[in-house]
């Protein structure tokens, strides 16, 4: 459920408490490779998915900066939240994110992930992604054009190289906080069987 005004989330500024100085030599070394080879998960959630095919194919050619689509979260490095995220999808996104291998990054597309966008008062859509998942980078726009997406990815690569994209460490460190927010958004889930909640 989207957040009520009177039920404010107890915000902590997670960005302040970065874990950057704990980088070891091997992590710094690995970051050089990680920044040049980013495999993204082919999991499209919102309308931003439409912008990815032109980004991948001939016109903008994502592969030239070393990015490639991958089929499963186990293989992928970056999770793209391409636009609005309904509560039902959020549950799956969290499951998928937790199946990814460290280090892993999250990129939020468009204004919906920033503040809800046009769905800011919807009952079924969450309005701020970084309450639930540690977002490393937002790409603004409604939707961002492929140029913006490419430039966003370049920025992400720089961040990884410098060791600034440490969302996954944040998620480990503030796991309780994220879990609390997630549970709050999802409410209680009644599971009947594989196909019905």
């Amino acid at each position, binding site marked *: 459920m989207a957040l009520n005004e009177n039920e404010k989330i107890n915000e902590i500024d997670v960005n302040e408490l970065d874990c950057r100085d704990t980088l070891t030599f091997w992590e710094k070394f690995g970051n050089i490779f990680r920044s040049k080879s980013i495999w993204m998960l082919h*999991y499209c959630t919102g309308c931003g998915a439409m912008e990815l095919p032109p980004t991948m194919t001939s016109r903008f050619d994502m592969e030239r900066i070393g990015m490639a689509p991958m089929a*499963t*979260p*186990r293989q992928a490095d970056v999770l793209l939240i391409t636009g609005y995220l309904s509560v039902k999808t959020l549950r*799956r*996104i969290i*499951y*998928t994110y937790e*199946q990814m291998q460290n280090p892993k990054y999250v990129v939020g597309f468009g204004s919906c992930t920033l503040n809800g966008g046009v769905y800011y008062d919807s009952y079924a859509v969450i309005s701020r992604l970084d309450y639930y998942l540690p977002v490393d980078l937002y790409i603004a726009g409604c939707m961002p054009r492929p140029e913006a997406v490419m430039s966003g990815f370049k920025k992400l690569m720089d961040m990884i190289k410098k060791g600034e994209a440490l969302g996954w460490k944040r998620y480990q460190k503030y796991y309780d906080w994220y879990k609390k927010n997630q549970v709050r958004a999802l409410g209680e889930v009644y*599971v009947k*069987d*594989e196909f019905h909640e």
Partner: protein
Amino acid sequence: MALNTLILFILLGGLVTYFVSKVNNKAGAWLTVIISLVALFYVYSLKDSSGEVFNVFNYGNYSLNLVTSNYAWFFSIVMVLVYSMVSFFNPYWMEKVIHPSAYNLFYLLSLGGTLGVFYAKDFLTLFIFWELVVWSSMFIIPLGKSRRASVVYYGISTIGSFAMLYAILMLNVKYGTFDIQSNIQNMSSDPKFAVLFFFLIVMAGLTKLGIFPFYTWLPIAHGNAPHTFSPVLSGGLVKMGGFVAFLMTAVLPTSKVFANHVQIINNPYENYILMILGAISIIIGTLMAIKQDDAKKLIAYSTVSNSGYILIGLAMVDQTGFAGGMMHVFNHAMASGAMFLSFAAVAYRTGTTKISELGGLIKRMPVTFTAYLVAIISLAGIPPMSGFASKWLIYQGLLRKGNMFIAFAAFFGSVGSFMYVFRPLAGAFLGQLSPKHKEIKEVPFWMQLPMLIMSGLTILYGVYPGLMLKYIAKIQETIGLTPLQIDGTKILTPNGMWDSWIVTLVFTIGFIIAAVIYFVLPKAKSVDLMDTYTGGEFIYDPDKYHYSSNYYAPFERLYKNHPSVEKFYDAIALRFHEFGLLVKTWFFNENPAFTVFWISLVMTAIIMWGDKI
């Protein structure tokens, strides 16, 4: 103890076991273990003996004799090994078999019978012991699941037995002797006459081996026999057919006797027919095994396929292919025995051998899994297990002669075997563990032991195939073929060589390199089997999440409407039944009209032509 005493000891031991089992099942079953182990050790001591004659029975002009020879030893040691290994399972199955004491009795009777078959000096002895085995195994099979199985088994065995009996008696009429060696010498001096007897006697071998038109009993009998007897049927008794085929192709030696006959791609047509039948069996066995959901039926069809390899190898009667066929007798006995035993172990704990009802057993039964894994690697012919050596030798032989169609079947069976052996591995041992099998344990030690010994032998002869091939080379020398060249661990053939030791060594080094990479890199986090990628969906039921039924559905679709020899047999049976009904209607009808008809017919005949009769 002499050989005849040993057979008598086993047969009498069977009777003793019967009465002991009446009192105490378990004690009787352990007695079968002891007796078959005694047989194993005694038969092993006959290794270098040859030409020793033992008398079994005398009656008038006829005497039943046994003679030792190195090929008889080879077959019998394989057989006794399978029997003694499988017998360890007997004590644990006593409560599941319907008549435990009868089971123990027939188990030992068939063991004694097989020894008699292999060491027989004359055809009469061979036939008598042959029938002893057929009958005693026929009574064991219905102790499992189905009575129809033993009818099919006996029905098809009869075809072979009667063909052989006819040939034996005809040979006796013509040459006045039952002795195998002198008969064979007589036959080889008269090749035209020999062709008929060659096929008649070989037919007995083909029915036992489960070659193409006679293979239908294998899946039925193997699939329905008691779980402990299936390994004996597949690993042991089938090889009796191999022995008869060996007698006819190699001891005769067909390559020399039939040398002047029509040659098809460098083989006398008699041998080529056998090879074609073997090739058809390989293809049918492979395709049918891929389809099976019951693991025992799957292994039974794989037996059909592997019997094809044995027959091809033996029918080649040359330096390399023949040695491969002989070695495959042992390899298949070990591999298929171990596969059946591991599924007997699975059935012991879970009560089923249906692949689609099992899954994830590796966590619960690691030893059984290991035995199965080693067996299938050998069966699929992958180095460094022993199955590779024999298949490689068969390929070399086929290549040398340029038998491309047979070779096609051999390769088809080999690649196809990856498919069918993997299905039980994936469906029963790997994948999700069903909640109803959460609690099961590994089988007791005495059941693990035979499986481990069989795996050990498979690995041993995979790394040092020379140990066995040297003996086979000796057999080749005995029957007048060019022996296989072996130099330490190297096997030399005209088309190239193979050094099993270096291959194993290199494989070990490769494995070590991989292991070093693995352990240098960061340690992996262990997660549950249900924590897998599901496309974001939540799955709670391991049974539904296990892919094991209809495993090769897209491939099976391609040959769904295949012609089948079973349907042909069924049609024949139906025609016979209809003919019987016809006779019954016309001659044995209760309706008086028919009686009146026949009487009037006879009367008419007498009146019309009575004077001429």
